[in-house]
């Protein structure tokens, strides 16, 4: 209170300093406003308006429609709701598989190329990173050739006597496929009724389709290299004395990995998981290149649906609503993940408390 009361007086003494300060931060403020704040606010307005994509969304013919656009995709039964539900289902399975797998693979690759004794380290680092610098679109096109019904992938598994699927066009869910191996081909009555977002429980449990699985493989292939680089940087920051100390204490390589390396990588792990989570909820370019509506709608994602609803169906409000739901969803998930990964040992709690006090004092 006392400090706050002093402030204006101090400002009065150093008159003009505030203005100079504003001048210095002006470029940053203007750029943030023009490219970030205003577009977000405009999109928020579009999501509660009936703008049809003609002229400016602020022109007087555009009306406020409240939460109608949000309702159309979440609570009102119909095609829009089912499309959104299917997209969320598809993307959910995509995230559940891509994020853990790419993180684990990136970490293992990083540990391997970090070994001092590895011959041709530079070559492997470049090779693993290469898919990340190639454009996704180019990779999707190469994958299309590899994964056609008579493509290289099916030729290889054909040599093992397995009849490969028509990858990018197969809409069978993996879980459904596995169940049908046990003779379960239809839903039990309890799961047949339309449920959350108009999708029946049976459909929610379909698993990623074969087509989506190909995209999952593609995503892991392209992004593992990027995250490997992040892990590699963090690994190199772990001093050799720690390794030696572990060695002296008699830790084997496995024990060292789980008790030393992984805990020391926690901040990087958080970065990688967050980036992975955000990236895979926003997956768009692969889907767009493949047309998005093939394989029985099982490769559509909310990001693609937002695009399609806006640009093709000219329902910009609904498209913006999908984008906002996705936005909120990603933020919530990131917060949850942050909370899960937080250090919870009593020592760190005390330290955190101490830091908080310090901060309070300086203020």
């Amino acid at each position: 209170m006392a400090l706050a009361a002093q402030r204006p007086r101090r400002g009065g003494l150093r008159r003009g300093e505030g203005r100079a300060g504003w001048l210095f931060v002006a470029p940053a403020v203007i750029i943030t406003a023009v490219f970030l704040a205003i577009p977000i606010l405009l999109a928020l307005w579009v999501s509660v308006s009936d703008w049809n994509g003609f002229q400016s969304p602020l022109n007087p013919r555009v009306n406020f429609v409240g939460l109608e656009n949000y309702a159309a995709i979440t609570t009102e039964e119909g095609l829009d709701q089912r499309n959104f539900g299917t997209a969320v289902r598809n993307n959910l399975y995509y995230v559940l598989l891509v994020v853990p797998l790419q993180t684990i693979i990136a970490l293992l690759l990083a540990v391997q190329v970090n070994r001092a004794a590895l011959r041709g380290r530079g070559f492997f680092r470049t090779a693993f990173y290469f898919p990340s610098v190639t454009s996704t679109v180019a990779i999707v096109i190469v994958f299309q050739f590899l994964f056609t019904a008579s493509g290289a992938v099916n030729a290889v598994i054909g040599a093992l006597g397995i009849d490969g699927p028509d990858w990018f066009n197969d809409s069978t869910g993996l879980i459904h496929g596995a169940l049908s191996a046990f003779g379960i081909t239809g839903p039990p009555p309890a799961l047949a009724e339309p449920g959350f977002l108009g999708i029946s429980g049976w459909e929610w449990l379909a698993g990623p389709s074969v087509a989506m699985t190909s995209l999952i493989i593609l995503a892991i292939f392209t992004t593992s290299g990027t995250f490997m680089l992040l892990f590699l940087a963090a690994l190199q920051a772990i001093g050799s004395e720690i390794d030696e100390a572990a060695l002296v204490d008699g830790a084997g390589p496995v024990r060292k990995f789980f008790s030393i390396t992984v805990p020391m990588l926690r901040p990087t792990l958080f970065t990688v998981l967050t980036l992975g989570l955000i990236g895979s909820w926003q997956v768009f370019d692969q889907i767009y290149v493949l047309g998005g509506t093939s394989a029985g709608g099982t490769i559509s994602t909310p990001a693609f649906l937002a695009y399609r609803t806006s640009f093709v169906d000219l329902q910009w409000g609904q498209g913006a609503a999908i984008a906002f739901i996705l936005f909120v969803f990603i933020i919530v998930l990131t917060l949850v993940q942050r909370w899960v990964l937080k250090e919870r040992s009593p020592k760190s709690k005390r330290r955190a408390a101490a830091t908080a006090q310090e901060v309070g004092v300086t203020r």
Partner: protein
Amino acid sequence: MLIGSSGDAETQAVQAAADAWAEETGNTVEVIAANDLVQQLGQGFSGNNPPDIFYMPWDQFQTYAAQGFIEPYAEDLENAGDFLPALVEQFSYDGQFYCAPKDFSTLGLQINTEAWEAAGLTDADIPTTWDELATVAQTLTTGEQVGLSMGREYARVGVFMNQAGGSLVEDGEVVADSEANAEGLAYLQELIAAGSLKFPQELEAGWGGEAFGLGKAAMVIEGPWINGAMANDFPERQFISVELPEGPEGPSTFAFSNCWGMPVGSETRDATIDLIEFLTSDEQQLAFSEAFGVIPSTESGSAAYAEQFPENEAFVAGVEYADSPVAFQGAAAAIADFNTQLEQIGSAEPSTLLGSLQSNLQAAYDEANG
């Protein structure tokens, strides 16, 4: 000018026509071939900077007209009365003729003559009914080649529903789940079960024409654009185009057409109208026909076309009984969902497929008219 081009031949022909007009009138026209026409149009309109003249795809026309995006200029054209009535109807919204159809295409049946002769078939065997089609498709099916192929979408499958006497909207009511539509689908399912009908996806082809060119399908259902595609990609392929066989309720085919769209309140309205009159003149349309195979949209133009290109007579004949695919505002999403559902056509009951189309279309129809 923004166009959705089928290839270099089309882009160059349109460019040449635009240049010729520009030279005559002293205006300038920049022709841009869109990668993704619908998206680029959407972007142009939302950015308040639409192209002065563009290809308006038939399936988006009703939506654009209903949203007030496009100028209803067509009645002011000097040649407004020359267009084929079916096309005028397709590009009318709320009783008003909006935009000039730029050309049109109908669907026909393409027959690979080499495979036809190899199977011992003659001109007398050219199918004119469903039964004959099923028979020849069966005869033409070998280990390497399937008898019949077509896109797995409403724009092909729907023809069979119409031939069985069905339609999606009749007298202001959505009747997608009618008996007749189910009969059309059931007929196709018989062909699938017999192994004589496969879709391009199952033949590893991007579309019917590719399956045809590769020799994986002996017959396909496509429009006149197939001529250009075969000439470019499969010049060896010998084939003829005939009218589609009749269904139990008579002949039917689909007519597709784009029109020359103009944004509402265009500043260049007069010049654009002049350009459109030039582009839709019989002479210019026949030049386009020569370049990329489309049929002129005027009565006299299409007659001249049938004379000039006797091999495409079947497509012109189709206009007599052609229907326009359903395209009211919002229908596109319901049709897209139906196309997705059609992936199950091999196994699902026709009534299930049509049931979901009925409810989606009904919802879209109520919204468009309510």
